[in-house]
């Protein structure tokens, strides 16, 4: 039974406007194996999973199931074929009970009436397999995040798939729950299924997986290879790609005697951060590194007043402050935040570029009765479009029509227009191609060179090593340590990874 190829894909291509999310991916899933799918953020893992489960249809390449070519047009078709999935996003109906959510794909019914009694038994069986004790009648809304995650996994078990794709299933689980999940994964593999496991935590991958595929920039750089042939460092090297680590930039020095622009002193937040201390000086790029879910963006949002700070002190230009809204952060303290989620939070997609850029400075441009001169608006916008090299057909073009990289530049431009005193940049280059990435790095570097303090959040280690002066490493809503960057990629990546994984050593 084991060894037969269940699902195979060759040369898969998926293009989104402005980015080739998948650019020639190959994957072979064999029965009885646990297959790790690895890659940095934006490497294309989630897109690949969505193609394999019929959410997106591929723009090129072929997909075969048991040796026969298949086209999966809908998630339901994928389920019927035998492919089950736990997506990264929450996929539960909040007002439905645990049992009903688990059986949602195929609810037991009799002549159009839902059979709630018949729903309970299989739901309880799926939960028991995971070793979870939950009241199957409880509405999902009342469960904790970890419990919801377990319900999602139980839901995938209910479909009895031959191929089960788990996208970051352990992100919100405790170690005991994770261990229980691993037992289930091994059991499923022993029964002849194939489990695809996506995780950022390499120890987990080495604990449970036997085969590995690595994606980088939408390409598979390692294809269905036995995991035993590779070491931790090999895999990390393949994921980040060492080639573009060393980049030459104009030299930049930081005045360490200057008053820090932003200081966090033992800050804790309602979101669960404890004891966070860091400082950013003029002209300095401080990197905040961590894996997805470490709480970096949440920390910044709390500082900007979008979440409650419950302890410690925030100081801007040396004096303690209490920021209650991003509006206050911008107008009173000059803090700009370039968001990670530019589609939803960073730009107004349906609005022209000029309005996107000048939204932060309307107050300054406004004359009597709040009238904003269109010409002045255009001047400000044109200046920034030229400075940042944004490729547009005209200032009246809608931001939504730009490529991902150019959208990101627009969202940066609006903060520069406001003459910010401190810039927080969150994941600036996720999902943009290598060339735009490089242009962006130069841009950030030059901004710091002109004296702008920058707090850079990134999960891209190469980017951190290229740009940051100091790297602050965060996991589980806590700071694990701080490293002075010597811009030697091999050495730095080793030190950062060690900080993340050898927590105890760092603490003592």
């Amino acid at each position, binding site marked *: 039974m084991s060894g037969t190829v269940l699902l195979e894909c060759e040369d898969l291509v998926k293009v989104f406007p402005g980015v080739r999310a998948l650019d020639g991916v190959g994957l072979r899933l064999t029965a009885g194996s646990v297959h790790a799918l690895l890659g940095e953020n934006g490497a294309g893992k989630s897109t690949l999973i969505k193609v394999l489960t019929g959410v997106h249809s591929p723009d090129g390449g072929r997909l075969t199931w048991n040796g026969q070519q298949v086209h999966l047009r809908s998630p339901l078709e994928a389920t019927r074929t035998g492919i089950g999935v736990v997506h990264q996003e929450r996929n539960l109906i909040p007002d439905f009970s645990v049992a009903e959510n688990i059986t949602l794909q195929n609810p037991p019914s009799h002549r159009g009436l839902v059979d709630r009694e018949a729903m309970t038994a299989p739901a309880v069986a799926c939960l028991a397999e995971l070793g979870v004790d939950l009241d199957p009648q409880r509405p999902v809304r009342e469960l904790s995040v970890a419990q919801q995650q377990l319900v999602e996994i139980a839901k995938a078990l209910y479909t009895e798939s031959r191929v089960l794709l788990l996208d970051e299933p352990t992100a919100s689980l405790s170690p005991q729950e994770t261990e229980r999940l691993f037992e289930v994964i091994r059991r499923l593999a022993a029964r002849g299924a194939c489990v695809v496991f996506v995780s950022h935590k390499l120890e987990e991958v080495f604990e449970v997986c036997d085969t590995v595929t690595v994606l980088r920039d939408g390409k598979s750089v390692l294809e269905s290879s036995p995991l035993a042939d590779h070491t931790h460092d090999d895999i990390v090297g393949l994921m980040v790609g060492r080639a573009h680590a060393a980049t030459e930039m104009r030299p930049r020095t930081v005045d360490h005697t200057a008053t820090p622009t932003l200081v966090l002193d033992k800050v804790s937040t309602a979101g*669960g951060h404890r004891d966070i201390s860091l400082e950013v000086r003029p002209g300095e790029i401080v990197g905040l590194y961590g894996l997805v879910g470490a709480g970096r963006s949440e920390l910044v949002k709390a500082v900007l007043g979008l979440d409650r700070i419950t302890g410690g002190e925030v100081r801007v230009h040396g004096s303690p402050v209490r920021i209650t809204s991003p509006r206050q952060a911008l107008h009173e303290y000059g803090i700009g935040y370039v968001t990670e989620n530019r589609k939803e939070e960073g730009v107004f997609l349906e609005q022209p570029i000029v309005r996107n850029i000048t939204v932060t400075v309307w107050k300054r441009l406004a004359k009597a009765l709040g009238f904003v001169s269109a010409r002045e608006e255009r001047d400000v916008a044109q200046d920034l479009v030229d400075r940042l090299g944004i490729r547009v057909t005209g200032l009246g073009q809608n931001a939504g029509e730009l490529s991902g990289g150019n959208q990101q530049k627009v969202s940066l431009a609006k903060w520069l227009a406001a003459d910010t005193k401190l810039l927080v940049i969150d994941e600036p280059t996720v999902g943009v191609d290598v060339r735009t990435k490089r242009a962006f790095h130069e841009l950030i570097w030059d901004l710091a060179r002109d004296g702008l303090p920058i707090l850079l959040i990134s999960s891209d280690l190469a980017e951190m090593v290229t740009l940051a002066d100091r790297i602050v490493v965060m996991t589980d809503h806590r700071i694990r340590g701080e490293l002075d960057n010597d811009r030697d990629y091999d050495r730095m990546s080793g030190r950062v990874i060690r900080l993340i994984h050898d927590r105890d050593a760092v603490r003592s």
Partner: protein
Amino acid sequence: MNRLNVTLSQGSWGGSALRRFSRSTAAMLLCVVVVGYVALGIASSGSFFEGPSVRVFLQYLATPILIGLAQMVALCVGQLNLAVGALGGFTACLMGVLMADHGVPAGVTVIVGLLTATAIGLATGVAIVGTQINGFIVTLATMTILLGAQYRLTGTRTVDGYSRTLRDFGTAAPLNIPLVFVTALVAAALLAAFMYRTVAGRRLLAAGGNPLAARLSGISTDRQIVAAHTLSGLLIGVAAVTATASLPGVNRSVGGDWLLPSFAAPIIGGVALTGGSIAVLGTVLAAFVTRLIDAARAQFSLDPSWVNLLIGLVVLGTVAGGRLHQTRLEKSATTDGAVLPQTGGAQ
């Protein structure tokens, strides 16, 4: 009402459902209704408990209940139905004209009315899905079209020379319980059973609760939107029948004051505007509450503007209360979430 309760707490988990019910909006509304009714009774030195008063009170409760449920069905898939009043008014006038001017028997008229309302609901749903235009805009358009059609049907006259049978149905009240009120309760019970028990009902709620998850589970959200508007149309049809039966005549003003109460009832009853939740019992009780306010006005001969003011305050109060409750829930959930990674880190 009892029947609804039974539907809710049916099955082996009766105990926990009862506990959950005691903390729900419906339980709170039930208290408000009972206390309010008793208070009114005492204030009127008992005359409010007497048969005729009860009958009048319940008589004019049927339509608010039904239009509240019709709006609730649209809300549960995350849609709005602005055409509730216009469709009801149009259907009522259509039925009046059919009977009075064309001599169509009452039974046939009622069936034609129900079918017409359902068909218009279906057409609205299809238009929303087909054009991908926001339901707010589409129902705004159907509302305006139907208002025009209603005016066209009746002009400025009041149609009142219609069937005795329907009028008898409207005024019949064995044991002082009006039949139209019973009709509304039966419709509510059937709707509750449909929503809680049938696969089709569950699909509606799934699509409203998390459209993406529903789609990933093979539920077509488009079809659910069409189904919700169709069902909403049917309920409006029933409301039009009860209105035509109990009103002295129908004219172009019928339905004109339905729209806001149709939103007020489900919102007070605990239905979320974002979709995915329903509260049949809550909506029915909320209609009771607004009716109580109206009855109180009549009792103390207050200015009619008080009614709207009070209903507005009750709507705001319930929504604000629900919001507070939600925030408190979320806060406790975050503390939970914060504890878990902590234990994870210590291992």
